[in-house]
């Protein structure tokens, strides 16, 4: 009887693991299959070199570059906001803050990541953009700047929380050695602790980038939906994710070439996030070896 129970439990645990893998494999194969049939009709060279993305217009162009630059531009702005703020927070919490303060503030910060992204999107559109327009006269109602800034605020906890874990994991003995030679707290933090935690900090940044690249709601609401090959942060752009939303919500006929574009765009997005996640996994593995 007991043996049967053990058997059932073991198999059900195994099957839930298998289901997860099956779903992942399913998603990837659907992506690959639809993208493959897209590339039967559109040359892959055009896809990567054409500078226009107009699959929904009469004069059709299938160049992913405008969507890609839109994605990278908003991501870059987000990281420029999240990196300095997130790192400062993590260094303060790990090296300076009293224990009790650290314990209260950390979960509060992580709340930032729990705010629904649609709220952030409207915050960018109706608060940040009008505010920025007071200083930047030419700023359009939809722009990558405010979307990027708000996305940066959203990913602060990704940077600060993971970096703080990495900094805190640096052995106390290293700090003592530094203090013991007459180093100040600031010198110890920047010359010993941060370098020792560098791989953990890099992982946190990569994960934050990955999160920003995949972020949809904020950019769909606040950055606009005009695919445009530009690095100007004040004009509307469209990211890969925002495009996918746009087409999924519209009345594009199922199975048409327009419909298949979202899979081509999707697989490009997937390639990026997959690469970043693999990279962070590799770095994390190396990081673990270093302290064991």
């Amino acid at each position, binding site marked *: 009887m007991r043996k049967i129970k053990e058997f059932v439990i073991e198999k059900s645990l195994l099957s839930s693991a298998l289901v997860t893998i099956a779903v992942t494999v399913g998603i990837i194969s659907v992506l690959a299959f639809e993208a493959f049939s897209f590339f039967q009709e559109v040359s892959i060279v055009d896809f990567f070199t054409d500078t226009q993305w107009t699959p929904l217009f009469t004069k059709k162009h299938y160049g992913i570059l405008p969507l890609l630059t839109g994605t990278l531009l908003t991501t870059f702005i987000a990281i420029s906001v999240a990196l300095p703020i997130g790192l400062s927070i993590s260094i303060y919490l790990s090296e300076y803050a009293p*224990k009790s303060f650290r314990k209260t503030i950390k979960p509060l910060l992580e709340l930032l990541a729990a705010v629904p992204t649609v709220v952030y999107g409207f915050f960018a559109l109706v608060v940040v953009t009008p505010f920025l327009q007071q200083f930047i006269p030419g700023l359009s109602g939809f722009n990558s700047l405010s979307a990027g800034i708000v996305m940066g605020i959203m990913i602060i906890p990704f940077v600060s929380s993971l970096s703080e874990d990495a900094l805190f994991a640096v*052995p106390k*003995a*290293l700090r*003592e*050695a*530094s*203090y*013991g*030679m*007459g*180093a*100040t707290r600031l*010198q110890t933090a920047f*010359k*010993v602790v941060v*370098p*020792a935690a560098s791989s953990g900090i890099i992982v946190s940044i990569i994960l934050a980038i990955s999160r920003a690249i995949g972020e949809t709601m904020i950019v769909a609401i606040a950055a606009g939906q005009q695919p445009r090959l530009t690095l100007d942060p004040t004009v509307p752009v469209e990211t890969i994710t925002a495009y996918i939303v746009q087409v999924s919500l519209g009345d594009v006929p199922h199975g048409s070439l327009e419909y298949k574009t979202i899979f081509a765009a999707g697989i490009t997005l997937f390639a990026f996030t997959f690469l970043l996640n693999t990279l962070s996994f590799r770095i994390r593995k190396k990081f673990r070896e*270093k302290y064991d």
Partner: protein
Amino acid sequence: MNVIMTENTENLNTEDKIAEKYKLQTKDVNVFYGDFQAIKEVSMNIKPNSITAFIGPSGCGKSTFLRLFNRMNDYIEDFKMEGKIKIDDTNIYKNKIQLEQLRKQVGMVFQKPNPFPKSIFENVAYGLKIQGIKDKKLIAARVEKALVQADLWNEVKDNLNKSALTLSGGQQQRLCIARTLAVEPSILLMDEPTSALDPISTAKIEELIHQLKKEYTIIIVTHNMQQAARISDYTAFFYMGELIEFDKTKKIFTNPDKKRTENYITGRFG
């Protein structure tokens, strides 16, 4: 030289005479962690260029007492200290004292080798660089001198840019000693510096400590009674936060005054 000076200057009062004779003095020192009293009324004077060993069972307060001399306990929450500790006649627990200055003068070597995850050269140069020394030639010279003093130079001189973490445990500990010496302190605190090392590395470090005595005042905490007997000039026996006996090492190990010291040394408890 100290002796001559004391004899020639007759108008010095007694306290000043003591100050010249001793490198380090503690008077009525109490340490508390919250409600727990870790050190009870310890007074002790330590002569320059001597090796003093602190012995006693685990939790007796010997490490806590050692870490008072470079104020390393300051980072522990609820730490409170009473009494006086003087180095070269300066009270190091005065508010005005600069921790960074104090720690340049009082170097510390820890129980486990704790090199920075940097190159061998950078490890030794660290203490100089944080002082703002930029002269590369001077840094290189001081790094070499420190590594020679720590008896590590011949083993690493061709690999100064290699990560310090590639060294063996014994080499790492000598690197940590070199790193401390590069700052040119006058007192060396060693908190069980050989407890994580094999016998051969231990012998090397003990030999090194013996040589360093010429230039430094050394205080070493050790669990190893033979080690204390081998290398130290003076031995202090701590028990439950109290200093039970402090005398010449020879006397402590052959004819201690207190019964408790004798029991501990002969291995009857602890």
